[in-house]
Every structure is written in C-alpha cells, then in structure tokens.
C-alpha cells in the first residue's frame, strides 16, 4: 500500500495523560492498574483514568456529556493534538478531514445510569438522558468533529476489542478513495458496569493485576482510554509537529476467526492471516519487524493463541510483548493507545517488556520480553483481536 503518515498523536489511559506521561510510565515500568472501585464493583484490577469525573466538556457541546466523550475530550486537549488538527484544517479545509473512530460501548454508562434512575412508577427515563449524544456509537465521532470543528465524513467502527485498530483500515479507505485528505483516527472506551460484569461472568477477569504471557496468568484487567492520530498522505505538506509523534502507517491485515463468539481459534489461523496480510501490504519480510506489540490480554486462551500465530509467522526471534500490564485492556481503545506506544518504540528505541511476569509461559515459542530493552527498530507490528472472532494487525514505520 502507499504509506500514510501519522503527523500528530495523543493518548490517555491509566498509564498516563499524554505521550510524555505514557513514555515515562513505560520507561519506569510503572503500572496504572489499581483494585477496582468503579460503580461499587470490586472486579479485579482496573486501569482507571484520573480526573474524568471532574472534566467538563465545552458548554456548547454539553449534550454530548458522558464518560466516553469526556475521555475523548481529555485526549484531544493533550499533546498539542487539537492544534495540529487546526493546522491541517487550515491547509486542507475542514470538510476534507474525516473522523473515523472505534469504540465498543461508547457512552453505555449513561444508559446504565439512566436506567438505574428511571421512574419506578411510570418507567420513564430521566428527562436529561440524551441517548443519541451519549450511549449511541455515533456520538463519539460527532463529538470529536464538533470539538475540532471538522466537517468531513464520520464513521464509527465497532469490532469489539479490535475497534480502533480497524479504524486505521477504514481511514485508509477514506483517504485512498479521495473522500478525505486527512482523517482523525482513533477511539475511546470507558469503564462501565456492563463490561466489568460481562467479562467477570465469562470468568476472564484476573483477581490481581493482569499478567500477560505469564505461566500463571489468570485473565484481564479492564481499562479505559482514548487516543487519536492525524493520518494523511505522505509528502502532502510539511506536517511534523512539536508534539513529537510521527510514524508511517505501512500495512494492515484484517481477518475473522470464523470459530467462536468469545473464544479465539486456538490454532490462531485468522490471527496469522491478519499478520501475514499486514506484512504483504507493507512489502516487508517477517525479519523486518523489530518489535510486536501483542494484543496480550492476559487470558489463558488469547495469549496462547497469539503466541502460536506469532511463532507461525515470525518464528522465535522477533521481540514481542504486551503492554496491558500498564494500561489494562482498554477494549476498543487498545488499538489507538498501543499505536501511540508503537510510535514511542519507533522514536525512542524503548521496547517495553511485559509487566507482572514471574515466569513466561514455558509453552510459548515466540520471544516474549519481560524486561525493557533498548534497541533501535524501524518497523513495529501492533495486534488486536476481539469477540466475534475479529483480528487486525497494523504495521508502523519510523520516520524516513
């Protein structure tokens, strides 16, 4: 594929607000996970973002107020991102910049709160519950476009935990067909009762902080996060910003498992196909990839499946790790948060080893890192998989 560039980027998660905080957390191996105290639920550990409750949206956009859009708004205000988009809009025109985002549950927390507060006699929901601007999946790109004053086409992709990775694919389609000159791509997912209780009901939540790739891993820690990247054609303008995030988007592969709704194909057939397709689109060989940021959720089956697929495609030499020990599993936002980690890896040569690992699963064949490694790399793969058997691999490259 013709490479695109990420000319600006931002992310917020429990690992930190903004790229510098995320980088510092990675360097110092400081996890953002804490015992769950959300909505009265004690479900393992969570990656909860500080300050969401106190954050206010601009008055003119108050109807969009929900935890998910607050997280998105917090991210937009970090890393000089909104300013970078304004610059791009003055170059291309606001109608030429689209918004393509991934989210799995959008503002469902607002629907939960509204249902909990419904009138027991009439059944009526509180009058201030605005379903289309909060709970609905399309509320997120509408909010982002309104906050950034953009007029291009909007899209929400909701492929469970691969949502914001898949958004990069959709954004590329928008740019390649000439529908847009640039796209604000990313996503947000926020803590809510539904996901905390849902993952617990499936027995997938670890009692301690998640330990991806450990022999004794016991499941995920649910996190929340938001992030955005400004994606545009290479060479269309001098787009390097002061924020320091710059990476090339070189390839992607999307596939399905065709296996089971909530359990991955243990052979990792679909996952391997996605990784292979990403390499082919990028015109790269497996040995060209310097680091793989695993989906690495910390469940028994995901990590084992992913190891099988990585070993099948890459053999045993390419360093890989999961960063869910820092952020928790931010579900539909994991793709964009981990894209920002990929950009940090490319810039700083910092390969983050999995957190909370006592001993790497002895059955694994791929080269899982459990401590940070300093090594300059040119290409990074980022994996995301989700319920419904959906897989997406992205490849990012360093600035030329």
């Amino acid at each position, binding site marked *: 594929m013709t490479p695109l560039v990420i000319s600006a980027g931002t992310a917020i998660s429990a690992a930190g607000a903004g790229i510098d905080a995320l980088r510092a957390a990675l360097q110092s191996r400081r996890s953002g996970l804490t015992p769950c105290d959300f909505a009265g639920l004690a479900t393992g550990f969570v990656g909860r973002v500080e300050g969401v409750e106190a954050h206010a949206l601009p008055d003119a956009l108050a109807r969009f107020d929900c935890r998910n859009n607050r997280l998105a708004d917090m991210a937009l205000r970090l890393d000089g991102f909104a300013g970078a988009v304004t610059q791009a809009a003055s170059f291309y025109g606001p*109608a030429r910049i689209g918004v393509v985002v991934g989210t*799995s549950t959008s503002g*469902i927390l607002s*629907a*939960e709160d509204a*249902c*909990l507060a*419904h009138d027991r006699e009439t*059944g*009526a*929901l509180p009058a201030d*519950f605005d*379903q*289309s601007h909060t*709970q*609905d*999946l*399309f509320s997120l790109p509408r909010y982002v*476009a309104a906050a950034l004053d953009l*007029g*291009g*086409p*909007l*899209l*929400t*992709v*909701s*492929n*469970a935990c691969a949502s914001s990775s*898949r958004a990069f*694919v*959709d954004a590329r*389609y*928008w740019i*390649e*067909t000439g*529908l847009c000159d640039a796209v604000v791509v990313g996503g947000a997912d926020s803590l809510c*009762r*539904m996901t905390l*209780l*849902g*993952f617990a*009901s*499936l*027995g997938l939540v670890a009692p301690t902080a998640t330990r991806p790739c450990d022999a004794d891993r016991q499941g995920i820690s649910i996190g929340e996060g938001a992030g955005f990247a400004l994606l545009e054609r290479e060479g269309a303008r001098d787009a390097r910003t002061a924020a320091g995030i710059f990476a090339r988007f070189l390839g992607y592969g*999307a*596939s*399905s*498992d*065709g*296996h*089971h*709704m*909530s359990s991955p194909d243990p052979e990792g*057939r*679909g996952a391997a196909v996605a990784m292979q397709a990403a390499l082919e689109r990028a015109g790269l060989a497996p040995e060209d990839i310097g680091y793989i940021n695993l989906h690495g959720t910390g469940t028994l089956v995901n990590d084992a499946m992913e190891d099988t697929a990585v070993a099948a495609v890459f053999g045993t030499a390419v360093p890989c790790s999961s960063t869910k020990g820092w952020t928790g599993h931010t579900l539909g936002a994991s793709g964009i948060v981990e894209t920002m980690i990929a950009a940090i890896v490319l810039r700083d040569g910092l390969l983050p080893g999995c957190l909370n690992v006592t001993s790497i699963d002895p059955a694994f064949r791929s080269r899982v890192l459990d401590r940070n490694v300093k090594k300059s790399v040119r290409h990074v793969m980022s994996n995301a998989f989700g*319920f*419904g*058997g*959906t897989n997406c691999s992205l490849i990012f490259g360093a600035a030329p």
Partner: protein
Amino acid sequence: MKIGVRGLGLWGPGLAGWKQGQAVLRGNVPLADAELPPPAPACLPPNERRRCGPVTRLALAAAAEACVHADMDPAELASVFATSNGDGPVVNAILSAIVAGAGEVSPTQFHNSVHNAAAGYWTIGHGSIAPATALGCYDWSFAQGLMRAAAEAVIEKRPVLFVAYDQPIPGPIGTVRITRSAFACALVLDPDGAGHMQLDLQYGAGRMDDDTLEIDRLNDMAHFNPAARSLPLLAAIARGDATQVRLTCRPGHLTVRLS
C-alpha cells in the same frame, strides 16, 4: 466511486425477500401488513442458532439471500455490517440485570452484546476468515455503510457483502430510541462493475434530506428504522431506473447515480 450490484437481499414488514419485495417496490403488488419472522439461519449449527438473537437472524437472512442472488460463496466474501441499535433485546436484558442489582449478567448475552455479533455469527456459520467490519452510525448507518463497503471493494479490488439491519429496542431505551419494525437489506458490491445495476457514489458536504417514496408507509418505515433508509435506493434498483437517489450521510449527503 463506481460499483456494480451483483445480488440483493431484503427482509422487512411486507417485504419477505428481494423477489417479493421488488414487486412491491416497483408498485406492482400492494405492501402487505404482515411482519414475518425471518427464516432461521441455515449456515449456523443448532447450538449457535439457539444462542444468536433475532437481530442476527434478521441480518443473516438478508446476507444469505444476497449471496445466493449473486451466486457467490459467502465464505470468500469480505463483509460490512451496519446497524444503529445492534442487539437491542440483549442490551436491554443486560441493563435490566444491572438495574435488578443482582451483580450478574449472562455470559452468552454479554458476548452477543458486541456490535459485531451478527458479523461474528456470519463468519462462524461459514467458517470464513474474510474480514467482517461492524459499523454503527445512528440514522445514517445505511448510507455510511454503503460508502464504506464500496470503498473497500474499490480499494481492495474484490467484491464486498454489505448488510444493513436494525430492529426495535425493547425496554426503557426503546422509549427514547424509537425503531418501529425490523428491517434488513444486503447488497453484494462488485468493483469490476459486473452486476444487475451500476452505482456511482458521490459524497457531498452539506446536509440534505433523504429522497422520499410514493408509498407513504415505506416512508414511515424508512423514518423509523435506520436500515430502511435504504428504501429509496432499493426502489430505484427494483425499477431498474437510470436515476439518481440522495441519502443523508451526516454531516453530508450521498448521491447515488444508477445506470
């Protein structure tokens, strides 16, 4: 973007499949009142058929019909599924469990609550590893999804199955997000231009309303179901007219020229 339509599927009130629905949309047959349940998804084994909800059955009925009509193997087709509401009954059941304070939700309901559930069941049913994308774009899900599916077909140079579906949401959320009937349609889009009809899609900035139809009850259907906003386009395809249809595609609009 130019794209051929190789096959169609349809399910809605008084519209039981493309063949029957086509006659209604042409104005040859009156629109019946009957809201029939869609056929059971033949691609799913009995246990998966039991687990999936009515909205998945609805989506898969239209998807399967379009593939048969196009004479294409569903396992080989990349797909795009667009729905505003997703699985309303499942989300309602989970919200009810949260309100009941039991502290538990059903694991099956939880994995069915993902927006890509129908897409997941479709790929599971056909053992397909082709990519399946799930979109949620409120009232504009059909036009946004059509544009996105056509873009994939054109850029990847391969046919794409596009399915749009929505059904009413029960419970409290359904009192504020009103969807009156179940409706699904599907189109197999071919970038080589092969097919019954050629579409030329043009996105334009600026808000414009959807085109309307001569049959008021179809306009009502379109007004109260995001997937049924496809009806002006489906009617034009049914008639085989070389015409132009305009669909709202927030923040802009989509103009579809048929030939």
